């Protein structure tokens, strides 16, 4: 408009300043806190592995991060993924919804990623402190790994010509491809751990030398001695312990078997032996005979099923009585018939059963070779672990023993353990299936996908652990839950404490706490 009177400069009831200027966080009575409660998988794991945490990393394709979490409790995921009997999976809450998460496969995937991406450490080799590890089984290797990581020089002595102990000599190749193992050993060597093979402590390795050159000794020689089969004829040729049989096969020797092969025992060693026997040239008739019922077998059910599927004949409630020889070789074996009541074996007053027998393999359980140990001086400061201490157990238990031994040794050497050691969660209640808020679970519709570790990890509910599903952020009416520094975090400037994030968290990883506590 032309003219002199200018339009007025009006002030409206106008709001153009972002609402974020109002700090509505001071309305809050309750504050969300991320708590870490143990998941059933973690509690079941002999290693206490932080499974939801590293699965979360896998889900986000952060294999390096998954490895960094995993190695706090388990430096050999490639191996444990292959050989562990996965109690984690059996206890997985997701199993009650549809199918449990394929944790061992994912663990192995992380291990294989690590093998592929491993780079030797730069800088001078570790020399500080010196520890001798006797025995290169999983316990010894685990101990050596953690000590080396803490900057303590380690030498591993192995009596056998190859490293790995049980891993190399006990476990069949179909369960643990040897390439996986040798790659792990290579990496340990590249890390700066020294290995000496073919040296037995007290034999090729004089005790004086140990005494002089090493501050501490970790004894992890395992349980290598098979319990004897005390029946007539057991001392004949053609009778072999499962340990010996597997060791020789694994060392590449040819073990001549005569059909039919009878395996006596119910543990994993017996099943391994039976399956390996079936793999030998010309062998088609292998029977496994156990003195209790199938249910009572210590061997993993999957393994037993696999053995049966491959053609191993299974017999139960039969206890070996006598081996009849012909020309000093086994010809027939007789078994007493038994029944088990309340865990006890009762021999039935029935005629013994007879089996033709060309080779008898017995696997009655292993025990430490105490005679070999007797030669070690008590003057040496000595730690011991693994099957040597616990009796025959699992690979993860041995890894855990090695880790704990390393922790003890570090304490003795007044070294702080490496950061990022696994936290154990005793005292906090396990997150049960009923507690989970599955109604909102974003991954509820996903089915198992073994071919794609990232997708499979995406199915993990993350019981008790933030699995970054995003629901807390999605359902926050105040936009206070935000993704910051690779995790969800609460902006207390805006959180009014409604609790929707905690209420809707599928994993129960969030709780509301009273007062003015900061969110963790």
């Amino acid at each position, binding site marked *: 408009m032309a003219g002199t009177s200018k339009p007025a400069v009006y002030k409206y009831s106008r*709001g153009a300043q972002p609402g974020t200027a*109002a700090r509505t966080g001071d309305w809050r009575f309750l504050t969300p806190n991320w708590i870490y409660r143990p998941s059933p998988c973690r509690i079941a794991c002999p290693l206490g592995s932080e499974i939801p945490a590293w699965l979360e990393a896998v889900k986000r394709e952060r294999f390096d991060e998954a490895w960094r979490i995993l190695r706090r409790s388990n430096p050999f995921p490639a191996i444990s993924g292959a050989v562990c009997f996965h109690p984690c999976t059996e206890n997985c809450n997701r199993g009650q919804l549809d199918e449990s998460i394929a944790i061992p496969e994912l663990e192995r995937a992380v291990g294989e990623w690590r093998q592929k991406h491993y780079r030797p450490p730069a800088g001078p080799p570790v020399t500080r402190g010196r520890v001798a590890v006797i025995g290169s089984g999983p316990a010894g290797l685990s101990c050596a790994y953690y000590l080396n990581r803490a900057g303590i020089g380690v030498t591993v002595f192995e009596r056998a010509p190859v490293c790995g102990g049980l891993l190399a000599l006990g476990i069949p190749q179909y369960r643990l491809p040897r390439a996986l193992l040798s790659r792990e050993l290579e990496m340990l060597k590249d890390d700066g751990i020294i290995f000496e093979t073919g040296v037995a402590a007290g034999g090729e390795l004089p005790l004086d030398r140990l005494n002089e050159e090493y501050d501490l000794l970790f004894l992890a020689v395992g349980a290598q001695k098979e319990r004897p089969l005390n029946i007539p004829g057991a001392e004949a040729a053609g009778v072999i312990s499962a340990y010996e049989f597997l060791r020789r096969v694994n060392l590449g020797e040819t073990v001549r078997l005569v059909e039919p092969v009878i395996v006596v025992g119910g543990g994993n060693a017996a099943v391994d032996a039976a399956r390996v026997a079936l793999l030998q040239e010309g062998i088609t008739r292998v029977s496994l005979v156990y003195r209790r019922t199938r249910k009572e077998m210590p061997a993993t059910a999957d393994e037993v099923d696999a053995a049966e599927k491959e053609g191993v004949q299974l017999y139960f409630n039969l206890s070996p009585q006598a081996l009849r020889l012909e020309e000093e070789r086994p010809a027939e074996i007789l078994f007493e018939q038994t029944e088990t009541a309340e865990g006890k074996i009762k021999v039935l007053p029935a005629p013994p059963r007879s089996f033709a027998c060309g080779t008898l393999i017995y696997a009655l359980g292993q025990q430490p070779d105490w005679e070999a140990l007797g030669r070690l001086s008590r003057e040496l400061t000595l730690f011991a672990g693994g099957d040597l201490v616990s009796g025959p157990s699992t690979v993860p238990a041995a890894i855990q023993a090695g880790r704990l031994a390393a922790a003890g040794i570090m304490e003795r050497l007044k070294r702080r353990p490496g950061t990022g050691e696994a936290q154990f969660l005793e005292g906090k209640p396990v997150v049960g299936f009923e507690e989970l808020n599955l109604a909102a679970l974003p991954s509820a519709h996903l089915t198992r996908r073994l071919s794609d570790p990232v997708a499979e990890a995406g199915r993990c509910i993350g019981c008790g652990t933030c699995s970054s599903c*995003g629901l807390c952020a999605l359902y926050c009416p*105040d936009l206070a839950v935000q993704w910051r520094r690779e995790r969800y975090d609460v902006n207390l400037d805006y959180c009014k404490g409604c609790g*929707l994030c905690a*209420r*809707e968290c599928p994993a129960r990883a969030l709780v509301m706490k009273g007062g003015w506590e900061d969110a963790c």
Partner: protein
Amino acid sequence: MITPEEAQNGGLLYAGHPACPGCGAALSVRYLTRALGEKTAFVITASCWSIIAGLPPLTSLKCPILHCTFPSAAAVGSGVKRGLVRKGDRETNVLVLSGDGGTFDIGLQALSGAAQRNEDIIFVCYDNEAYMNTGGQTSSATPYGTRTATAPFPLYQDRPKKDMIRIMAAHGIPYAATATVAFVDDMHRKFAAAREIRGFRFFHLLSPCPPGWGAEPDETIHLSRLAVESCLFPLYEVRDGEHYTLTYRPAQKKPLEEYLKLQRRFHSLEKEQLEAMQRQLDLNWQKLLQLIN
């Protein structure tokens, strides 16, 4: 899996808005603006959102907001749309935001008029089932069996809630749909669809109000989910006033009582009232299924 960016995407909503803790109405706007995008203008009638929108000089939305009187929302929104078009802006979606009072009651005349003219706007009713901004008085969206400030004990709302979607569908508008906060994807999909349609679009959003319903503030999503799972608030859409599509079918119909017992507004109802409510729900659900089939 949703990415962290998607999970925390606030749409056009700013943090710091003055809604009650656990507000379903704030969540509704958060989700729907994610689907509509920045080219949106809000017209807000007297309702909780008169406050949630921010007290000037603040604003709670990253888009224009025009507040208007209680009965006028649909007409003001229509005017804004035509005004913008007249000024050469054909893109901006005009969204009229109204509570249940401004939709079912005092705003119905303007709403019906705008729908009948097929004005090119999106009318969103966030339904918290009473006049919650003023302390919870009965509206014609208040369901049977509810105790309110104007129907206190021993009274209760003894008439059923208006079937708003069917009233709107009867206008023959291009699009009408229900949605609720627990089903974020469903809501997103519907608003994204509505964005592509020209003409009058109507949304009925069940928007739980923890203080008004006598529920805990962390129950908002749970209540919203239960309302759908019990078939009390079915998720569906109606195109051109006649093509009904169910967008979510509960795997197993949950008993209504599970939903009712979480809310103090339904407390101390007699057994036969609860049964009557369940019967009415079953009947409504059957009627809806017939429309769909």
